[in-house]
């Protein structure tokens, strides 16, 4: 209890509060802009926050993360262009509701569901993170290695076009993490005589390049794209009667979203899709889905915001990112000198509770933004792409440069961006590569330590039941896309047979 008070006390400082609110503002703004999303904004924020104290720096990012997820719903509802991928499912019913003349109601439903989902997941976070950290304290290198492998295997089911390509991206990310001097032996690996590579590839330029520049190059091809806009009216809060009808959908999606968020590598997009599907499955008015169903709005919105809080649990308690955005927050924690994991929670609990407080403030703040400012934030889409993206690139360039004051990092960002653009074109997502890059060091370090403990006998590490459980989960995770496919095929076959009969 004392740690909670101390953590919240850390946020009372006016500068910290201002930065959190700044994070919320930027988050909603960025979330509302199609193409720009929370990972891009967090990546661009890292260089800015590097000079700040850790509490305001990480709190600002956490606030931005929560608000960015919500911000995407504004443009999903008003212009049928989800500002961020997690809001794609919201557009399915949000836009039809807005189109039939009820944009204020759709925004109100999305706001209330988002806040409920966010707060729900934070309550779980405050209990689950310390418990998980307590368990993880018992982990030895081999258990950590197995956990990291399991987290990487979860990339197979992360949102994206292809599980196989996600896994290749993840492995390439881990491989990139091996560039530089090998810590145990001092041998240089893949440095090609370039002195700047001796310390390895810096996270930030790669992240900024993959997310911001890759997206900019993609946007350069759709400069003349226009959206059909629906004039926003004032946000209308749902009535008590309506809330009563929707309470089970909101709670179910909040629980589901939190659970999905806690799973390593899964993020808000998967949660939103599952939230939508479950809302439809349990609904008594299934035929209204796709035509402006309130359940079709609150289901994905509660789930994607709950996943944001849920994803912070493994990030802080285990040092395993729960999503692409939390992978960036993890990178920022490392840059601020923290080692995310059980020791962080056990030794500096007030820091973790300060982040929790920042996310709570963010949720309350975007409730106000949703109610008062949603229609103004939707105007951000009027900013011409021809000026917006050069501005983003300027920030990307200076952000990459400012980490070490090196133009070499700007070149790394540029290469990462161009590679990211072609990767995305061929179905290789950027998020798995980032996760691999960030987890790479942990995987290699724990693998080497385990091999030393077990005298280079790989099968020796299987003595631990925890390792066996994680490896079993890894196999399940890797084979799950195949099982899903087989199940779908069987269902289609059955459907065909029924139709023929």
């Amino acid at each position: 209890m004392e740690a909670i008070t101390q953590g919240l006390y850390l946020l009372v400082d006016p500068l910290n509060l201002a930065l959190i609110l700044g994070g919320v503002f930027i988050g909603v703004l960025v979330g509302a802009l199609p193409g720009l999303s929370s990972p891009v904004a967090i990546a661009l924020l890292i260089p800015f926050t590097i000079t700040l104290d850790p509490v305001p720096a990480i709190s600002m990012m956490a606030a931005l993360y929560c608000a960015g997820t919500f911000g995407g719903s504004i443009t999903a509802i008003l212009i049928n262009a989800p500002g961020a991928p997690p809001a794609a499912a919201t557009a399915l019913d949000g836009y039809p509701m807005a189109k039939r003349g009820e944009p204020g109601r759709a925004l109100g439903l999305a706001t209330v569901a988002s806040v409920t989902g966010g707060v729900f997941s934070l309550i779980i976070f405050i209990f689950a993170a310390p418990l998980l950290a307590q368990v993880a304290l018992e982990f030895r290198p081999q258990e950590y290695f197995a956990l990291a492998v399991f987290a990487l295997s979860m990339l197979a089911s992360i949102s994206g076009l292809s599980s196989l390509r996600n896994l290749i991206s993840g492995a390439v990310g881990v491989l990139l993490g091996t560039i530089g001097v090998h810590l145990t032996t001092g041998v240089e690996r893949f440095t090609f005589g370039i002195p700047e590579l001796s310390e390895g590839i810096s996270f930030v330029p790669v992240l900024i390049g993959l997310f911001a520049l890759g997206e900019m190059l993609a946007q350069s091809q759709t400069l003349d794209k226009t959206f059909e806009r629906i004039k926003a009216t004032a946000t209308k809060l749902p009535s008590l009667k309506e809330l009563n009808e929707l309470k089970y959908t909101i709670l179910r999606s909040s629980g589901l979203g939190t659970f999905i968020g806690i799973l390593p590598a899964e993020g808000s997009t998967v949660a939103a899709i599952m939230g939508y599907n479950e809302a439809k499955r349990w609904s008594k008015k299934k035929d209204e889905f796709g035509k402006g169903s309130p359940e079709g709005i609150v289901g994905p919105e509660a789930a994607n915001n709950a996943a944001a809080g849920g994803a912070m649990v493994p990030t802080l308690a285990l040092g395993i990112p729960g999503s692409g955005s939390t992978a960036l927050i993890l990178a920022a924690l490392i840059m601020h000198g923290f080692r995310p994991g059980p020791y962080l929670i056990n030794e500096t609990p007030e820091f973790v509770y300060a982040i929790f407080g920042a996310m709570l403030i963010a949720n309350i703040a975007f409730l106000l933004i949703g109610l008062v400012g949603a229609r103004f934030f939707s105007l951000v889409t009027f900013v011409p792409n021809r000026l917006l993206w050069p501005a983003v690139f300027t920030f990307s360039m200076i952000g990459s440069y400012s980490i070490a004051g090196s133009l070499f990092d700007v070149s790394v960002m540029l290469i990462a961006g161009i590679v990211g653009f072609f990767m995305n074109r061929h179905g290789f997502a950027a998020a798995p590569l980032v996760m691999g890059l960030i987890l790479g060091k942990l995987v290699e370090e724990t693998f080497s330590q385990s091999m030393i403990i077990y005298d280079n006998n790989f099968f020796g590490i299987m003595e631990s039941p925890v390792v066996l459980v994680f490896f079993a989960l890894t196999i399940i995770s890797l084979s799950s896309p195949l099982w899903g496919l087989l199940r779908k095929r069987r269902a289609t076959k059955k459907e065909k047979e029924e139709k023929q009969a």
Partner: protein
Amino acid sequence: MSESPPSANQSEGARSEDEGARLFHPIDTLIAVGIFIFVGWLWYVSSQFDAVSSLFQDNITPDKFPRVLLTTIVIFALFLPFEHILLKRDGRDIDKNRSRPVKGIAWVTMAALIAIVGAGFYIGTLLMMFAICLVLPILWGERRLKYIVPFAIGFPLFVAFIFQILLGVHFDPGVFNVSFN
């Protein structure tokens, strides 16, 4: 001379050829081959790592972990040419994003960025920002000077103010010695 109808063998051959074409996705096959070549080269590079001191001979050698990863990538890449079959059955189209060629503007943007960042080593950070804010909007078709000029001057100064003055980042002044200070 009349054409004889295709024999059973011929039609079977055509069918198997057709199935063969569908079995391998041409672009993904190329990507897989590219990956194999790249992995082969990295494998060779890993064989050139410095020898490890005898003190560390019993530990995992520096090339071992990268080689585990390279092997993993190759194993995954082996399935790439055939993956489209499974994706298609699942209703997903792997060619959706790449069905159209990359537009000229994307290539031009890449070339411009490479040129500006390359020049950045000489002209310094601030001039590099001015160049980006001026060149990119024009390349992308913005012709309204009332937007371009204030943006190309004001935005780099704003960014320089935040990073150089507020955050204390040192901006490389380049050969022209141009700096916000």
